[in-house]
Structures are given as structure tokens and as C-alpha cells.
């Protein structure tokens, strides 16, 4: 779950990290009013789940209220890498003396937490990694030990931050690690972490991705979930608790299990078509889940055919078949359905479906032949 910058800063502030006072604005007037309360000069910053905002013209300095009005008008509605700006952060401007980069994430290969710190902040870290890899100091942290102050000091020294920034950085980095662990983040990033002209180390940007699996122990996640940017189809699927990802094709896909669902999208592609979505109904392919899945796919105007790919492991084929028939009674389906049913009780399942077969419901023996059929029907 990706947070907006302003949410990331609230998250950081909760763990005691220094961020600038700021307010959210959805209109030009709200932006001006916010700037008035905060006092100019301010920064006007696009809030989107995408990097490269500055380059795209989504971050502007405003010396006075007229400038706030002008920039807010320009930035609202701006398209940044496919994300349309609908909200702004109006934030007190800082006097920047120096810029750094800091982040924590999980190193899946090492199975340890990885901290990265660089004295070259304010630019994309991927660029630094390619052009000047020695400018990034890395630290691998065993989650059992955590980040000790001594290790943090060594790390800051390795990054060769200027002396004036050392104490402030050690403090912020330890808090950042605490936020990362206690907040159950997949990733926390500050770029730039700045040294102000007044000699303070300060958080100027915040990029935070939270682990959705941890939602049960973080009631505060709910407010972040409600602002997630989803297309209409994804929002409908999310409301039904379905694992759905919208894609650009015309073959609607329903499968049980994430791997099989991915694989189904792949074979549709290999058959010369394109999937309209990834949808994993999990192990419980009952009538309710199947109805919800068919409804979400049926409401996608791009869908021309539907491919239901079920491999019954513990999931029973006869129950899946009954679920499909019940779902078709509940939901009026506009596109033809092709089913491939294998595994546990598949024979019984096929027998249940047989009397219903026709132009609207077809059955194929294998995943590949079903994919070909669904693609033909979508053409």
C-alpha cells in the first residue's frame, strides 16, 4: 500500500521525525488559504503515487500567494506518469544547505533489512547507483538485533556525510528504522533528507509503502487504504475482497490461486489474445465468490469473453461447477464463458455443467485449448 507524501510525513512525524508544517488542498482556493495560514514562502507539491514529480513540473516554490494560486492551478489536473494530480501538499519552504538520501527496505536475497544512505540526495537513487555506486553506503541489519546506535554511527561515517549533519542524521535514521519496523513498512525512503541553513537535519520528502498483511495490527492503515488510487474495476473487486488487477485486454480471467491466475493471463497471451484482468478467487470457489467475480468482470466493458480456469486441489470441482451455475442465475452475463476444470472431483463438476453447455457456456479439456477458445470468442 503506497502512501502519499503527506501521509508518509504524518507517519514519520508519529515516530518523532522532523517534518515541515503543511496542509492538504484539493482546489486552488484551498491551496491559497492553506498558504495564508502557513505563511509564505511555501512549496506547492503534487500528491501522486509516482516518482519524478519535480521533473514533471509537479513541485514548485511559491514566494507569495499569487504564485501559490498560479502553481496550484497548473499542477492540479497535471498528468504525472499516468497519475492525474487531484491533491496538493502546501508546505512551509525550507532553506536547503545540503541534500542526502536515506531508505530502508527488505533485501529478499540476503533476508536481512537493507539501509541505504547517500550524500547525493535529491536525485533518483537508481541514477546514483549506476553512475556513482560508491556514493551509496549500505548497511545490512539482522531484524533480531535491530539497528544499534553504534552501527548507525559507522554507517553515517561510511556515507561521509559532513560533520554538521552527523548527529542529526544518526537521530533521524534510528527513528526511520523504528518507523520501518514498528510501522510494518515494506519500504521507507527520504529523498531528500536535508541539512538546513540553520544546521538542522530535516525530512523534506517521504515515500512509504506499507505491508497490507499487517493491517490487522495497524488501525491507522484504514485511512490510507481509503485514499488508494484504484480504477473502477479494481475498486469494485476490492470491495468484494477479491484479488484483482486490471489489465488492458478483452479476455476476462478467473482462476483459483495466484500462480494459476498469472499463468492463465500468460496462456491467453500465448494464444494470441490479451487478458482484461488478473483475478484470483482463492480456494473458496463457492457461489458467492464466483458471483462477485463474474459481476466484476461482466461490468468491464472491454471484456468480450470470460475464461474460468480452475484446478481443484482441495477445492472440489463439483462445488465449483455448482457455484458457476448459481452465479449465472444471479448475474446476467453478457460475454461467453469458457471453462477448464481439472483436479479434485473434476469429472463430477463437468457432469454438472454438461446440461448447461451452449453458446454462453463452453467447456474445454485443457488450459491451452480453453485459452485458444476464449481468445477466438474475444476477437
Amino acid at each position: 500500500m503506497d502512501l502519499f507524501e503527506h501521509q508518509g510525513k504524518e507517519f514519520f512525524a508519529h515516530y518523532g521525525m522532523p517534518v515541515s508544517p503543511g496542509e492538504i488542498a484539493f482546489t486552488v482556493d484551498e491551496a491559497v488559504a492553506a498558504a495564508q495560514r502557513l505563511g509564505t514562502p511555501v512549496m506547492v507539491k503534487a500528491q501522486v503515487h509516482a516518482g519524478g514529480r519535480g521533473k514533471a513540473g509537479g513541485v514548485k516554490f511559491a514566494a507569495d500567494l499569487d504564485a501559490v494560486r498560479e502553481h496550484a492551478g497548473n499542477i492540479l489536473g497535471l498528468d504525472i506518469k499516468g497519475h492525474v494530480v487531484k491533491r496538493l501538499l502546501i508546505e512551509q519552504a525550507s532553506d536547503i544547505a545540503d541534500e542526502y538520501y536515506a531508505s530502508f527496505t527488505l533485501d529478499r536475497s540476503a533476508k536481512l533489512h537493507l539501509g541505504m544512505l547517500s550524500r547525493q540526495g535529491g536525485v533518483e537513487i537508481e541514477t546514483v547507483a549506476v553512475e556513482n555506486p560508491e556514493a551509496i553506503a549500505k548497511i545490512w541489519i539482522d531484524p533480531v538485533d535491530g539497528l544499534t546506535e553504534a552501527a548507525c554511527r559507522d554507517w553515517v561515517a561510511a556515507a561521509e556525510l559532513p560533520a554538521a549533519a552527523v548527529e542529526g542524521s544518526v537521530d533521524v535514521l534510528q527513528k526511520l528504522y523504528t518507523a520501518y519496523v514498528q510501522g510494518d513498512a515494506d519500504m521507507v525512503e527520504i529523498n531528500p533528507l536535508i541539512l538546513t541553513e540553520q544546521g538542522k537535519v530535516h525530512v523534506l520528502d517521504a515515500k512509504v509503502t506499507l505491508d497490507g498483511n499487517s493491517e490487522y495490527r495497524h488501525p491507522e492503515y484504514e485511512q490510507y487504504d481509503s485514499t488508494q488510487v484504484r480504477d473502477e474495476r479494481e475498486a469494485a473487486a476490492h470491495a468484494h475482497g477479491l484479488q484483482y488487477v486490471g489489465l488492458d485486454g478483452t479476455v476476462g480471467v478467473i482462476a483459483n490461486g495466484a500462480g494459476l491466475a498469472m499463468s492463465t493471463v500468460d496462456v491467453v497471451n500465448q494464444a494470441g489474445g490479451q487478458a482484461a484482468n488478473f483475478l484470483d478467487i482463492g480456494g473458496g470457489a463457492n457461489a458467492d465468490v464466483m458471483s462477485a467475480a463474474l459481476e466484476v468482470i461482466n461490468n468491464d466493458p472491454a471484456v468480450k469473453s470470460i475464461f474460468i480456469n480452475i484446478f481443484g486441489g482441495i477445492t472440489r470441482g463439483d462445488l465449483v461447477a455448482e457455484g458457476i451455475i448459481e452465479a449465472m442465475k444471479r448475474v446476467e452475463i453478457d460475454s461467453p464463458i469458457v471453462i477448464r476444470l481439472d483436479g479434485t472431483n473434476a469429472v463430477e463438476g463437468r457432469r454438472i455443467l454438461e446440461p448447461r453447455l451452449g453458446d454462453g457456456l463452453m467447456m474445454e479439456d485443457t488450459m491451452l485449448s480453453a485459452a485458444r477458445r476464449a481468445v477466438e470468442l474475444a476477437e
Partner: protein
Amino acid sequence: MSIFVDENTKVVYQGLTGSQGSYYGRLNAEYGTQVVAGTNPRKAGTEVNGVPIFANVVEAVEATGATASCIFIPAAGVKSAVMEAAEGGVELIVAITEGVPAHDEAWFFNKLKRDFPNVRLLGPNCPGIISPGKCNIGITAGHIAKPGGPVGIVSRSGTLTYQALYELKQNDIGVTTCVGIGGDPVPGTSFIDCLEAFEADPETKAVMMIGEIGGSAEEEAAEFIKNRMTKPVSSYIAGVTAPPGKKMGHAGAIVSGGKGTAAAKMAALADAGVSVGNNPTEAGELMAEIVVGL
């Protein structure tokens, strides 16, 4: 032979009193697995389907000699359940539960490595492990697997594990052991752990490996296969058409920053001499060709 489990494996089920645990515990027992105990601190002294319930893993191990644990505890309790199993003295922990926080997984992976280096953790978020005809721990439907070998299977995805077993059965090929390592960012057991064990197992003559997008585990496995494996491998990677930045169901299945793509994984495996199929059926057919040539 089989890897990690065999007919002598005795299993305690943490969460046997819950709906999932009791259901799969019964299926595993019916398959022939030695289901010797369950745990639940509030139900010690009772029975589930004739299996005795103990307060904790220590007591279950003392009373029954259990050598493995299978976890059906909800995600919030998995961290302590894993540690309870390790402290209880089992050699193998199979964590079926999905949705475990990544920070918990990273923590208990390293805690086990440090304090219980001889304990093997499988999962979380995995279908379990089956050595056909001998032992089935977890949620795999036993009848889709043909016993006997010569093929070992290792897979990151649940339903694709079943698909792989099924493809081999369609080709009348038996399986020594099928290990589902799970789709999470920090799996307790890696592809390499399984490949190493299959390489050492005299009855396993070839290995089928099912991967998916995200992370670099398949690339690392390719490196291992290239340098250390003598047995032939066939493979399939799910998610060729997955768009970057979108999690495809599994917490670990995401292409980000151009890393973790199926194309890169398939290229690395092909470079290591692996027969790479474009879909599970092709990978099964490639394995059938390998088996004919053994």
C-alpha cells in the same frame, strides 16, 4: 527416497482444533501421514478426529515423539507458533498460513537461523510438502500425485504446484517429493535448499521447478543449477505478461524497478541449461522428454 519427510515423519498440528486445521489434518491422516498430535492451550486433554490435543508443542513432542509441525494458526499468531515449534524440538515446521507480515517473517527466519540452525521452516503461505505414498503435510490433494519418482518438484505457487503434479501424472511420471516453498518475500526454505536436497537424493533423477515473478530467487537457483547440479531440470515461470508495479496476488509476486521479470528469470534458467517451458503443460512435456532420456 524423499527429501525432508518420509513415512516415519510424525506430525503435530498447531491449530488442529480450528476448521482449517481439523479438515486438512484429517485429510493428511487419511492419506497415510502420521498425524500424532494437535495443540491448543485451552483444549489440552481433548481429541480431534481421534488425535490427542496438547497444551503446546513441547508436551506434544514429549508424549508422541512428533518430528514435524504443521501450522494452521491465523497470521497474527504465526510468529509465536513458529518459535514454539522450534523450541518444542521438531526438525521441520510447515507454515501453511497466508498473510503473515513480512517483518515477522524476516524476524523468525533469522531467529531460527541463529538459535535453531537444524530446524527447517517451510513457508509461510505455502501448500506444504508431499512425498507421494509416504507423507502429505498441508493442503495438497494427495491423489493428484503419482508415487515413486524419478522427479522432484519445487514450486513457489500453490495451484501451480498441483498443476505440475497433474501434468506429470498425465505423462505417467512419478514424484519423489513435491515441495511448495510459498509465495512470500522471505520463505523459510529456498529453491536452492530444495535443489541441493534433490541433487543429493539418489531416487530423484530430475527436478521440475515452478517459479514466478518478483525477487531474484529463480536467478539464484539458476546460478546454483549451473555450478552445482548434475541432474536435469525443467522449469516454468508464471507472470510473463504481468505489468510492473502490480502485486499479482502473492506478496512476493511483483515486478518493480525492472527487477524480477519472468523474461530475466527464464533467460537465466535457460543459460544454466534448464529446459524452460512457456506454460505448465510445456514444462510437463519437457520433463516427460527428460524422463524418457534418463
